[in-house]
């Protein structure tokens, strides 16, 4: 027995070494690798593409959000190991486009497919396009119908939307909810999530157009900060930081009744808490319109099949394919020609009580006024999230925490 064990071990080792050596598919096909994070809704598209192109074999590898971007950075730095196509989130696109030479420049003749701001956000300072847009994060509010009913609030989505044209009214609704809320349920998931949505709506974000960090003097963001901090003080927050395991558990346990919901968040809710199907619904976001997140497909220069990779990336991000992704995964297209198309505009989602996701999100995307993102907007977002968490954890007063945040990001 022991000997067979060793033999199997040696065999596995040899096999893995061999696998490590052989690059490219052995059956004469060209293998295109694609590095993703989270859920892009591409699986069916890959099969479709492979059927139409018998010489192509698509292999995808998916990692978590931060692992994916850090691996990509390491692979670009060492000029080795990147996939033929690499997805990049808008939170990281500025850091990557600062070094456009790492990426294949993509053609600009199809620029009209995308929303202007989506196109410009991945354009380098010297005018090179490093990535074609996939989805955008049009904003809405996801809410739990059952918890709203239990707290004596209306649960119909139009009535709910009418409760909060502004964030002040959103917080006021929160207080009403808290007065009669079921045990263990708070109004929103955590301060950082709400704050991200509010920041995303401001005309100016963390940076001005000359790449200077101006958040310290940004009255809109400070107003949002004070509002959310007050909400936290009023006990409206479940104190969970988004994208953490505790937050994931919060979905299953029904710890919060509302959630700032970019379109991609809906796929996340379905993944995290399949049991809550039908309990969720979708209302308009206070303040009207907004964007949080969204991604790009880039083609690193170091790849061996750059031309075929560009072809695939172009195909995946074309309006037709974005429409299919919206249909099966709910990611909001970045190509506005789809917004007026019947299949998109009238789409409903059964998980969210047949909410008209097509209408809600395309309205949000149309109402969105683009905001300039500076070079390290992602880092600043992390810091403001930390700052709000310090308030939630009772470590600092809102003023102290804000002062430390501004000092940290301008240092």
């Amino acid at each position, binding site marked *: 027995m022991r000997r067979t064990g060793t033999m199997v071990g040696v065999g596995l080792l040899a096999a893995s070494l061999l696998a490590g050596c052989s690059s490219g598919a052995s059956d004469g096909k060209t293998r295109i690798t694609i590095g993703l994070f989270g859920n892009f809704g591409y699986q069916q598209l890959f099969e479709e593409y492979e059927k139409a192109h018998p010489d192509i074999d698509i292999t995808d590898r998916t990692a978590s959000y*931060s692992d994916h971007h850090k691996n990509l950075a390491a692979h670009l730095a060492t000029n080795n190991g990147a996939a033929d196509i690499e997805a990049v989130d808008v939170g990281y696109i500025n850091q990557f486009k*600062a070094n456009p030479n790492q990426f294949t420049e993509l053609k600009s003749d199809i620029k009209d497919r995308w929303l202007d701001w989506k196109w410009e956000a991945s354009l380098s300072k010297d005018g090179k396009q490093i990535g074609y847009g996939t989805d955008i994060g049009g904003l809405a509010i996801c809410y739990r119908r059952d918890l709203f009913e239990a707290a004596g609030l209306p649960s119909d989505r139009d009535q709910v939307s009418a409760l909060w044209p502004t964030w002040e009214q959103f917080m006021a609704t929160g207080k009403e909810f808290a007065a009669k809320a079921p045990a263990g349920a708070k109004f929103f998931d955590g301060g950082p999530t709400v704050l991200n949505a509010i920041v995303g709506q401001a005309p100016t974000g963390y940076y001005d157009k000359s790449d200077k960090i101006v958040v310290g003097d940004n009255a809109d963001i400070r107003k949002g900060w004070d509002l959310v901090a007050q909400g936290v003080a009023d006990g409206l927050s479940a104190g969970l930081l988004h994208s953490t395991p*505790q937050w994931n558990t919060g979905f299953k346990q029904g710890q919060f009744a509302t959630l700032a919901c970019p379109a991609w968040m809906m796929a996340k809710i379905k993944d995290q808490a399949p049991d809550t199907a039908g309990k969720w619904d979708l209302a308009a976001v206070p303040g009207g319109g907004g964007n949080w997140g969204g991604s790009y497909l880039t083609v690193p220069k170091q790849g061996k099949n750059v031309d075929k990779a560009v072809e695939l990336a172009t195909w995946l991000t074309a309006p037709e394919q974005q429409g299919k992704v919206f249909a099966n995964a709910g990611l909001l297209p970045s190509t506005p020609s789809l917004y007026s198309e019947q299949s998109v505009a009238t789409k409903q989602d059964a998980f969210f009580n047949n909410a008209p996701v097509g209408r809600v999100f395309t309205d949000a995307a149309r109402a969105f006024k683009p905001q300039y993102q500076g070079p390290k907007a992602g880092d600043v*977002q*992390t810091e403001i999230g930390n*700052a709000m968490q310090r308030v939630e954890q009772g470590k600092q007063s809102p003023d102290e925490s804000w002062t430390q945040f501004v000092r940290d990001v301008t240092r």
Partner: protein
Amino acid sequence: MKTDWRERRHRWDIRYAPYAYIAPYFLLFSVFGLFPLLYTAWVSMQDRNLLDGDAATFIGLDNYVELLTADPYFWNAMGNTLSLWLLTTVPQILFALGIAQLLNRRLRGRTFFRMGVLLPNITSVAAVTIVFAQLFGRDFGLINWALELFGAGRIDWQAGTASSHTAIAAMVVWRWTGYHALIFLASMQAIPTSVYEAARLDGANGWQQFWRITVPMLRPQIIFSTVIATAGNMRLLAEPLLFNPGAGAETGGSDRQFQTAALYLYEHGFKKFDFGYASAIAWLLVIATVLITGLSYLAARRIRTD
């Protein structure tokens, strides 16, 4: 002539073959150890973006000057590293001694227990950390549930400095105690029984035998374990990183309350892409590790037989 040639070859063999035998190690070390060290030292004297090595500029010791004189978060990270070093290394050695002593007795299923203590060490550190992060969860963690059962309040483990250090130290201690215990156990079995018999005749009880005979006789192993544990705990990364996963994982908590030096390095190198600065942190960490290891070596050496 022929014998002369043979003889000469024999002499060469004796003289040079040992170098050939140890050469593989030194070759590997110079490629995977020495070269990266020196290269890191070179990068640490540059203002260099991770993605754009060509645009790097030489700035001498500026990174070091900034770290040592103008970066409070570097000192914060160093402080956390020292605190975690103490909280992990000391209990680890003490628990390991205790467990080794227990395993040294005649027990039923001795081999089972001896192998069992090593199990935490061979499980994946990521899996361990994720499980522990669940145990230490604020709302649904098992530990808070138990605390509440006994009337103590809930603790937001990630929020506080002391609480987060305790939780992280628990993961490390759980993982490494068994490993050290086995090393201690092996040498305990080499202590001649006659020494204990003599002590018993002189009227020494079990406790006295343990502290006056066992521990002093284990001195070389305790020194070894202290040095190994120190070197490992000074570069603690995975535990604090995975204790608080999510977009802000690199900062080690909302106020960097459990950001270790290695995590600070990681933040600068792979989140902010500041390769030069991260390399300077790496070298300062090397220096600190050598210093602390030296100190703990001196401390462990003070164990003596009377």
